[in-house]
């Protein structure tokens, strides 16, 4: 595979962007809309499919593009090619608060499975495909749904997720219970299963839902501290209670419920 080795630097702490340095003739690929700035003499083009250049047939490129679409990415890929005689820069910004992690696919065995829509950019040759969750219960309750992204190749891929990101290596026989939705990426050697929270009290009041994601080694996993779902739930809750008018609405609803109950008790049968 023709991988383009690239140099990069990640800037920022919570709202990050990654600056990639392209050697002469080198290419980088990204999601359309992720670009933040780009030097002169870097040609920007958009292709259907993943821009890996392997598919010359339009229909098979379209098919690849559709698979990308289902995995939460765009049908198109933006390609940045350095046409100058010296190094040029291109930067990609994260779409939300969180962190960008560079993952070397070669060190991950050539394949990595990531959360839907987590792929931000990468060296040319990184392919974005579809990883279909074959286990019903994991697809239903695992927090990541039935479709994840499969990144293949042996270059660097930049993966973005909200909150703080942490990398963890699981040795053979070691397993970790993770709140559903906190899983960002895992090597394909890791077993991904779900586990019932155990006690009904924990399930109802533990705030973690009925199931944990259970990840068993060997392999490396990446976790996020703040899944977007949780963030939006928190923000929505704040919006409802912090707004005094919102509180009045809840009060009125409560009164209405009480009145309806009283009326229905007194009404003749």
């Amino acid at each position, binding site marked *: 595979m023709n991988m383009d080795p690239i140099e990069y630097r990640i800037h920022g702490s919570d709202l990050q962007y990654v600056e990639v340095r392209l050697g002469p003739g080198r290419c980088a690929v990204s999601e359309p809309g992720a670009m933040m700035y780009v030097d002169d003499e870097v040609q920007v083009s958009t292709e259907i499919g993943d821009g890996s250049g392997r598919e010359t047939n339009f229909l098979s490129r379209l098919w690849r593009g559709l698979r990308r679409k289902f995995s939460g990415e765009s049908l198109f890929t933006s390609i940045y090619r350095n046409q100058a005689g010296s190094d040029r820069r291109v930067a990609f910004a994260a779409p939300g608060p969180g962190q960008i992690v560079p993952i070397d696919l070669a060190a991950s065995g050539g394949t990595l499975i990531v959360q839907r829509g987590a792929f931000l950019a990468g060296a040319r040759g990184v392919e974005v495909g579809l990883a279909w969750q074959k286990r019903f219960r994991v697809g239903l309750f695992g927090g990541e749904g039935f479709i994840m992204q499969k990144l293949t190749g042996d270059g660097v891929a930049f993966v973005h997720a909200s909150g703080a990101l942490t990398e963890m290596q699981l040795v053979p026989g070691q397993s970790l219970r993770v709140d559903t939705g906190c899983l960002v990426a*895992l090597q394909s050697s890791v077993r991904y299963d779900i586990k019932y929270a155990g006690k009904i009290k924990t399930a109802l009041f533990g705030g973690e839902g009925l199931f944990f994601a259970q990840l068993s080694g060997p392999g490396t996993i990446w976790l996020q501290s703040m899944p977007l779902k949780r963030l939006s739930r928190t923000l929505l809750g704040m919006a409802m209670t912090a707004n005094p008018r919102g509180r009045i609405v809840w009060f009125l609803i409560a009164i209405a419920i009480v009145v309806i109950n009283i009326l229905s008790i007194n009404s003749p049968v």
Partner: protein
Amino acid sequence: MNPSFAALLYGRDLPPAGLKVSAQFVGNRLQVGGDLRLEAVADAITIETGGFDHDTLYLGWTDATRGRLSLAPLDTVARATLIGSAPATLEAALRRHVRSSRNDRGKWLLLGGLAASLAVLVLSVVLGYGLIVDWAVRMVPTEVEAKLGQSTMAELRQSGKLLDTGPAVDAVSSIGNRLTAGSRYHYHWAVLEDPSINAFAAPGGYVVVHRGLILATKTPEELAGVLAHEVQHVEHRHTLKAMVNSLGWATMATVLLGDVSAMAGMLAYQVGTTHYSRDLETEADTQGLAALVRAGIAPEGMATFFRTLARQAPQMPIALLSSHPATEERIAAIEAGIQALPAKDYPPLAIDWAAVQASVRKNDDAVP
């Protein structure tokens, strides 16, 4: 000497993506080659199923110096070699692993099969709608049809305009009974004191002719043409088919269950104005011609009458035409049908048509 197989070895001090090694079973021991020179007794090895797809085979054991280790075959060839050369002590566990990874595929095949058969079912309902209507109509017993017809007639009788006896009814029944000889239905013929030109058939063999139709036809053969057409609606259960289409399946189900009363009123209102599809009308025309020939009645009456109606249509609204449009192509089709019949001399119907018409006209004077 057992064949060796390529594998990935995972462990605490090894690369996270695994170390590529060559391994083989020697007797009751697993030997891992390369620089590591590891060995494990088969009894100490556990078989685990792992990986994202839960289909990767892992041989796990604890090494004295390296701690817990896992070995996974590199590809399907290596996996087959491993399973084929494993000592007997591991056989049962390996078989369990193969079965569990196969189970998963079965579940998705089952789900796919269910989805596919549902799609086929929906598609066949959409494409075979006509066949399903035919089947549903065929399932309605004749007694239910008779009940439907009776209740329709009862509604009409309440209007006080229905004639069950008299020269007109006799004439209609004598023609009708000739047309329906040998039918499985028991026909009832009636004349309605209504000046509009119309005739209709309720399910179960109840045929009603408006007085206006008798006055408009010049010969008994013309009336026979209209009757032959209406009779086919009964014989081929066209009313029921039209009901299925216009009233829906829920009503049809109640009829199938025998609850006739619910819809009898609706039918009484509807039956005179029921619109049959063009296919059903064409079927009634061709089958009606055949019935006329079988009964030995000159079939030309059907064509001439519709021709006359078509000429009059622009000046006066004719009820019969609203449900039986006398289009040029329809009349042409009827005439072509008559042409195709073998030429034959039919004896004219022995009915004093002027007297019959006079009898209904007389009623006209009696009933204001």
